[in-house]
């Protein structure tokens, strides 16, 4: 989970004038990244190389969709990313199932953008159905799917609530200028999660992770943009403008801590278990996860590092040739009702893309509104960054350096 784009001076100025709400500003930050990605796309189109026989340019208009509700459909998402009751029930999905008389097959099978893509790539390339009707991917990966033509165009007429309630800051992003393919699910921060009882004090920066007392009790993320982003910020490099050399120097910075065993593992969402069990005392993590873990273990803390944290948005999209696109549209539309979004938000605790969800939430659970991770203060907003859109060549070289670091 990390993001393309940057918080522009223009946006900050607009915020200062009161023209943008705090949340809008935050969301807007998640967007601009696409500018660079968009430029890459345009360049690709300009050169006329729509390349791959089965991939190629995004399809232009919405395909006509059979408007019958399928008896079941599949939604792939990240773990701990929807409202949950009694470990296995998801009230918002249950309401949806009841209303439309369908059965949602909810999979928590995305732990890492790259490895999820790796798993389904061959099928997408061959034009096969990947047996999922919605997948939820982070901006930069979503941009890749759009570029490769691996997602279906949305029928906007089927999602009036998205039309009405989608946060203006998340509309017309350059990774999807016409809002043809992506519907935002959540935004959030990458920072440092820790257990102050076990660390014996507060952590404020990435450098604090290297305290010899925490040897073997620190984890970093397998999401390259998150781990390298935080380290680059620590090194005083802006991840929105980084180069291959910066990536290499970030890896070189981390390498000794891998070699001496300071870093126990590189993880996806599974750092949550290690942190909760006390196997890990401090780690890189995602804001909303930590808010959730706090319900079981109120000691846990999340901090945006003093030298900067990362900001990203995850997006729902319909994979190419999905079998039940109508159900997928219905769900997107259903989720974009403020009350339903608030239900999810109350549990998920990331930053919600649905206007009005905040008001709905304030009525039901005002404590959430006081949580600085969900409604962040200006100082936090000033301190979060987005990872630049990498060119395919950079993508390869960044990944090579990073994979080398995490053990091949």
């Amino acid at each position, binding site marked *: 989970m990390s993001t393309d784009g940057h918080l522009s001076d223009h946006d900050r100025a607009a915020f200062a004038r009161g023209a943008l709400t705090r949340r809008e500003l935050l969301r807007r930050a998640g967007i601009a990244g696409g500018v660079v990605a968009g430029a890459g796309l345009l*360049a690709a189109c300009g050169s006329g*190389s729509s*390349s791959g026989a089965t991939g190629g340019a995004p399809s232009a208009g919405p395909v006509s969709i059979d408007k019958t509700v399928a008896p079941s459909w599949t939604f792939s998402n990240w773990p701990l990313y929807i409202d949950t009751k009694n470990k296995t029930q998801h009230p918002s999905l249950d309401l949806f199932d009841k209303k439309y008389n369908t059965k949602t097959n909810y999979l928590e099978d995305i732990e*890492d953008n790259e*490895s999820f893509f790796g798993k389904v790539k061959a099928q997408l390339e061959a034009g096969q159905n990947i047996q999922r009707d919605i997948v939820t991917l982070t901006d930069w990966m979503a941009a*890749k799917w759009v570029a490769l033509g691996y997602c279906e165009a949305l029928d906007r007429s089927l999602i009036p609530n998205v039309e009405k309630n989608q946060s203006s800051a998340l509309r017309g992003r350059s990774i999807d200028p016409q809002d043809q393919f992506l519907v935002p699910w959540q935004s959030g921060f990458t920072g440092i999660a820790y257990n102050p009882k076990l660390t014996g004090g507060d952590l404020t920066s990435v450098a604090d992770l290297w305290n010899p007392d925490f040897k073997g009790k620190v984890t970093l993320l397998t999401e390259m943009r998150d781990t390298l982003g935080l380290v680059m910020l620590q090194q005083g490099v802006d991840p929105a403008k980084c180069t291959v050399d910066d990536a290499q120097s970030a890896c070189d910075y981390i390498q000794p801590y891998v070699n001496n065993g300071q870093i126990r593992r590189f993880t996806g969402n599974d750092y949550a278990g290690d942190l909760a069990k006390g196997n890990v005392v401090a780690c890189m993590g995602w804001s909303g996860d930590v808010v959730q873990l706090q319900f079981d273990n109120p000691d846990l803390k999340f901090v945006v590092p003093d030298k900067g944290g990362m900001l990203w948005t995850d997006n729902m999209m319909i994979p190419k040739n999905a079998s039940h696109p109508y159900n997928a549209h219905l769900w997107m539309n259903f989720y974009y009702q403020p009350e339903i979004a608030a239900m999810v938000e109350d549990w998920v605790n990331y930053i919600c893309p649905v206007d009005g969800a905040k008001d709905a939430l304030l009525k039901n659970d005002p404590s959430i509104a006081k949580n600085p991770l969900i409604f962040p203060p200006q100082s936090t907003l000033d301190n979060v960054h987005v990872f630049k859109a990498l060119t395919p060549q950079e993508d390869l070289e960044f990944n090579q350096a990073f994979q080398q670091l995490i053990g091949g």
Partner: protein
Amino acid sequence: MNWLKKRPAYPLLLPGMLWLAIFFFIPMAVMLYKSLETVTVDLNYQQHFTFDWNFSNYTDNISQYKSQFARSFLYAAIATVAAFLIAYPLAYVIAFRGGRWKNLLLLLVIAPFFTNYLIRTLAWQTILADNSVVTSTLDAMHLLSITDALGWTQQSRLLATPLAVVSAITYNYLAFMVLPLYVSLEKIDQRLLEASLDLYANRVKAFMKVTFPLSLPGVFAGTLLTFIPATGDYINAEILGSPQTRMIGNVIQSKFLIFNDYPAASALSFTLMAIMLVFIAIYAKLLGTEEVTTV
């Protein structure tokens, strides 16, 4: 159709050969072809593979990942020996002293396999957690300071150490060692043992001269069934390991699924197979039981 009269059994091979052709030889050929391709990425992130006899896939990747290769063979070898040391007495007791409990005991050996491989391995995460009973007990007995000194564990913890990975591999493949050993021990003719004792061999000598040699086919099969999959295993290192315990299976997995660098992954897979074949050939020569090598 004269040959059919002379060799009436050949058509019976057909289903097996067809199976092998479709699911083994053709994929192998495809993989060999892939391993000599070059991958390029265009501006649309689309990967293109061109076949150009790119042998550097082999040389580059072998030199880059030699430590992961070495680690895989080392871990697999230790796990195989450990599994053998655990399995032989177990199979021996079941075969010779099991009596009417034989079937039940065998069932107990296989019972863990009714649980999913992944779940069994994940359970070890809990068993070996830093403040688990196992860890604190071993630590209280000062065993972990010994393994720390040997480099098998770090900071007196078990999870995310070589010891955790090797132990879990041993556990996960134990049944593959027990079953062939049991079969070979079980069919030993008891009268041969009686004869050796009649000829004034003591129990140890009878074991060394009669029982063990007759169980060699089981030893051979068991070690191969353990060693080969253990070398390519990546789940245990993934779930219970750290960056310093990554095995070649982890590298191949990430090359395939994260990098989508199929040529590199294929080259590494082929190299792994080649090394394994050489090992097995030498091993077969050394252990050389007739039943296995003359087939």
